[in-house]
């Protein structure tokens, strides 16, 4: 989260005014610029004339060839239009694929873009924010979410069908297989319409095979580093 909180100029020697380039400035009230529309964020940052924490925090990864690659961490969206771009960027899929997966009509989406100040009806948002919340949590624990979803046919089918809980459950299974030291907690997104019962059966079967107790009431808690922890 990025907060703009410039403090007032401290002038213990009372010499403001002798430096032409400096002026005394009162502190301004803190604004979380991650919670406002992107273009408003850009305007406020420009007006504040200060360097905020970078919106994009590049981290260096190495590809198979050893060539360093830069991963750009996407800023959490604050509007439905940004949310679509956020999902598209996280998973490396097309805009059309995102809209189809979350159940938002293309015409509706273009209406949002045309009138940025409009407030979309809740019914028109489909599963958009559910998907955003789920992917944000998954991104915190998965080294490369886009690579995983494109290399895992079950995960991609779950995404295409908008089955958020199924997607999360598949990711849990991946983490259990690859990081057995962590205990999984599954997030509850309140979505019971996409086969959660089936997921529980699958989890139970998997638990029996791997001698891991099946989770009863899944909850999600993130560590300060933003990584999800799965129940033991």
């Amino acid at each position, binding site marked *: *989260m990025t907060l703009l909180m410039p*403090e*007032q100029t401290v*002038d213990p020697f009372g010499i403001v005014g002798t430096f032409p380039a400096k002026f005394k400035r*009162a502190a301004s009230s803190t604004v*979380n610029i991650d919670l*406002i529309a992107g273009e408003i964020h850009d305007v406020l940052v420009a007006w504040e004339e200060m360097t905020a924490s970078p919106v994009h925090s590049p981290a260096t990864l190495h590809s198979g060839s050893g060539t360093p690659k830069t991963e750009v961490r996407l800023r959490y969206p604050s509007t439905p239009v940004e949310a679509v771009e956020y999902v598209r960027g996280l998973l490396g899929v097309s805009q059309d694929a995102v809209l189809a997966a979350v159940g938002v009509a293309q015409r509706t989406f273009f209406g949002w873009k045309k009138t940025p100040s409009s407030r979309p009806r809740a019914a028109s948002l489909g599963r958009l924010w559910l998907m955003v919340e789920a992917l944000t949590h998954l991104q915190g624990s998965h080294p490369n979410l886009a690579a995983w979803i494109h290399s895992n046919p079950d995960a991609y089918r779950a995404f295409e069908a908008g089955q958020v809980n199924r997607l999360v459950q598949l990711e849990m299974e991946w983490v259990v297989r690859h990081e057995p030291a962590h205990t999984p907690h599954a997030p509850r997104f309140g979505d019971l319409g996409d086969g959660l019962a089936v997921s529980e059966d699958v989890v139970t079967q998997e638990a029996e095979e791997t001698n891991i107790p099946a989770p009863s009431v899944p909850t999600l808690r993130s560590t300060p580093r*933003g990584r999800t922890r799965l129940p033991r």
Partner: protein
Amino acid sequence: MEQSVSGIPDEWDVPLGGLEGLARVLLERTHVEAAVAEVRFVGGQRELSEAAAARVWEGLGTETYPVFEPSTQTIMTVTISPAGAEPVQESQQGWMLANSDRTTAVTLLPSVVVVQTRDYQRYSTSLGGPLAKVLALFTEATGASRVQRLGLRYVNRLTDPAASSPAFWRDHIREPFAGALHGPVAHLVTGVHQQVQLQLDETAGARVQSGAFEEQGTVPPRYSYLVDLDVFREQASTFERTLCANQMRQLNRTALALFAKVLSRQYLAELRPVAVPPSDTPGYGFASRKSVGDESTENALKEGEFRP
């Protein structure tokens, strides 16, 4: 919290700085990008424990704010000395609570409480009430007792489909705040930004930032006008709930009065100011829908004739 306990306007409904304005009016057609209420305490801690933040979270309701995540705040301070101006940067660890779509968030830092919303309805329900609840829980959980600064900030965005250039806003913004939009080069302006700092009394002040900017992705180009109002009081005092609430209420009245000074009277009328009924009358909380042409509303817009 919108008004005094008795429902009768009191001294805290009077805007600071001798400003006259719309202390009891809602504007129906503004778009608030962000409304922020902030209280800063005197303190030296660098981190707010998860346990303390969780107590506040549980008190507010985990269903209301299902998002609970850590946050880091970077503070930049410029200290001027004979050796020059030295910027100092330090970080504070805290927590953010938010509703499911993140339109409203509560930020808890070791010595700062911030309530921010994009879904602003009216002060009492969108900021005043939530802030009071958070402060009660926060001071109990942390022991914070001395207030350093109170602040209220409104980032208002004005839009119009016909705003094909910044000059469009010339007739909607009063000349002192519109800068180059009034004058011989208005037709050449592609962007404008102005910042005004005001001293309202010995410890209260305001900063008004305003300007036009090109909207992203619009073809042909379209320009919005942003009015960023920050009203604050910087005065060290012992935290007392009622006093804090009253002072914040007065900052709200002041912010609205300032907003009325930025916009032209005609444009202000287009934003459909609606009189707010007093709390002891039926239907409190729902603004009565009066047209702009209504005599009582027209009287409210006249300079110096509106009285809280």
